[in-house]
């Protein structure tokens, strides 16, 4: 297991270096002068240009600049936003709980609906139920989620007036964030109706962000279950006269879950990409919207830092998924 762990880690380090080179190179690839871009100042005197260039380290050889950058990044210095002048890491830490809360709710939504749907489809293979579930899953998988969000807004916020259109909580509530998770903070605040407001703001974004993972999980569960249901030990369990629910729920499901767990883990990247669209539609103040806004504002340090932080998170999560997979399935270690 240790060898497996270090083997995976050995692959991760060059990938991280590659990702940091991409983030570093991003500023040089932009059209225009990096000194002007990174300082956010267009017109400046030659003396000031020299000064800023020196401060940013742009007057040194490119390799030294990169190593400098890598050193800064590893000590948590991702530069400062051009618009708010705050450190990128501080803004990220402030916004990330919003994305995390939304992503967690979405993944719970996807798992809670997707796994049972996949199991039912597999057990009732070839029936109308199977076809309906799989047809719906394929539609979900093909869904342009930005349009799906707009449709839900038309129906639930427009026609039925059940849910709000944007934000994390109604403006009538105000409290200091404690955990950054609106659901928890609203409960802690003790204000009447605050929790309900937070939940109602969360419902539509959760559905939108959870739709594609839901479809993927349902499809994956179905095919994993089908594979397992054909195995000898399942036949043995049936032949022993065990009740069908026990055969499906214990013997089959346990083994079918191995690839499904991996699929769920790999949805993290999908989530962060989906958050870009979902957060933009619902004005959800998380890192997805932050990145889109920064691209529009040409806040290059933020894009550079955000890119690196997000990629690092995905790499770490994928590593954890890999290790978990090795833990549940010893065959993969060799």
């Amino acid at each position, binding site marked *: 297991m240790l060898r497996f762990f270090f083997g995976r880690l050995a*692959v991760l380090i*060059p*990938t991280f270096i*590659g*990702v940091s*080179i*991409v983030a570093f190179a*991003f500023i040089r*690839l*932009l*059209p225009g002068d990096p000194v002007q871009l990174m300082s956010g100042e267009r017109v400046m005197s030659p003396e000031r240009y020299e000064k800023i260039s020196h401060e940013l380290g742009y007057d040194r050889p490119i390799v030294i600049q990169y190593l400098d950058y890598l050193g800064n990044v590893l000590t948590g210095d991702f530069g400062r936003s051009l618009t708010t002048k705050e450190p990128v890491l501080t803004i990220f830490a402030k916004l990330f709980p919003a994305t995390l809360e939304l992503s967690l709710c979405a993944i719970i939504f996807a798992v809670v609906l997707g796994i049972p749907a996949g199991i039912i489809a597999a057990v009732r293979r070839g029936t109308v139920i199977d076809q309906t579930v799989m*047809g719906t899953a*394929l*539609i979900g*998988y*093909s*869904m*342009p989620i*930005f*349009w*799906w969000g*707009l*449709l839900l*807004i*038309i129906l639930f*916020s*427009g026609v039925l007036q059940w849910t709000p259109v944007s934000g994390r909580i109604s403006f009538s509530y105000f409290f200091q964030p404690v955990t950054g998770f609106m659901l928890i903070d609203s409960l802690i605040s003790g204000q009447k109706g605050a929790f309900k407001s937070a939940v109602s703001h969360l419902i539509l974004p959760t559905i939108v962000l959870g739709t594609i993972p839901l479809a993927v999980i349902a499809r994956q569960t179905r095919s994993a279950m089908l594979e397992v249901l054909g195995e000898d030990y399942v036949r043995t369990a049936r032949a022993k006269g065990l009740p069908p629910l026990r055969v499906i729920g214990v013997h089959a499901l346990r083994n079918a879950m191995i690839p499904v767990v991996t699929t769920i883990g790999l949805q993290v*990247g*999908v989530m*962060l*990409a*989906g958050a*870009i*669209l979902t957060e*933009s539609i619902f004005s959800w103040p998380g890192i997805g919207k932050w*990145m*889109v806004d920064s*691209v*529009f504002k*040409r806040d290059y340090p933020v*894009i550079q830092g955000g*890119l690196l932080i*997000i*990629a690092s998170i*995905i*790499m770490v999560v994928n590593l954890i998924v890999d290790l978990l997979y090795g833990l549940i399935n010893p065959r993969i270690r060799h």
Partner: protein
Amino acid sequence: MATSTPNALQEADRHAVTMGQRLSEFWYYFSENRGAVIGLWVFVFLVVVAILAPLLAPHMPQQQYRDAILVPPYWQEGGRAAYLLGTDAVGRDLLSRLLYGARFSLFIGVIVTTLSLTVGIFFGVIAGYVGGKTDTFIMRIMDVILAFPSLLLALVLVAVLGPGLINAMIAIALVLQPHFVRLTRAAVMSEKTRDYVVAAKVAGAKPLRLMFKTILPNCMAPLIVQATLSFSTAILDAAALGFLGMGAQPPTPEWGTMLAEAREFILRAWWVVTLPGLAILVTVLAINLMGDGLRDALDPKLKRS
């Protein structure tokens, strides 16, 4: 010469028969999947629509009718027969824009898939065949690309290159090609030790010929399935970039861009929001249905012969 002609003819004939057999076998498995056949017909319909858009569209997609702003579809109260699916906020005929939009989406799919497929196959074959340090180097680069969420990387690339349809397509192709590299590499690695490859090598085939003429044709099945997946992903991602304002720019009748323009009328005029998205969904769904059928037909593991 006289003796070689009949031989060559026979050879060609036999080849034609096997091609025909293979096609009919393929169709046999493909057509067993009803959804795949439906997907294929919808796709053919979309291709026809895209080609004939100038003939089918009742209006020019950019033409603004100042007297017909946000006219609802003709079956609704206030609808007009001249604008079957209504008009948008500046009085452009929605049906015509949707028909022309099919051109953009299919064009995006074809170009992006071709680009990522070609580049991906090229690097995949080299990584798989050459192996060693070259392989490690290529695969680490692919790992780096895959470490970023695809849409985020595409968004940032577009920010570097500048917004626009062509740049969006380049960005999406770059983000999609690692999947082809990985698939090709895996297939090449499992093929390259087979007897027919060794035989070709002994017969004196040069590495380039071995890589691209001997081995590659036997690795195509998973690549074709992946290509259909990429086709639909390309359309979705391009629409998403258009929606974020980073893809095709207005007044281009690209479906995602149309959605972005329609956002502010979401509660007043349902048709400007609903219809472009429906067009994206139907197109992507048709391609994914086809992809499922292709996988069933091309995956030898599932064949019961």
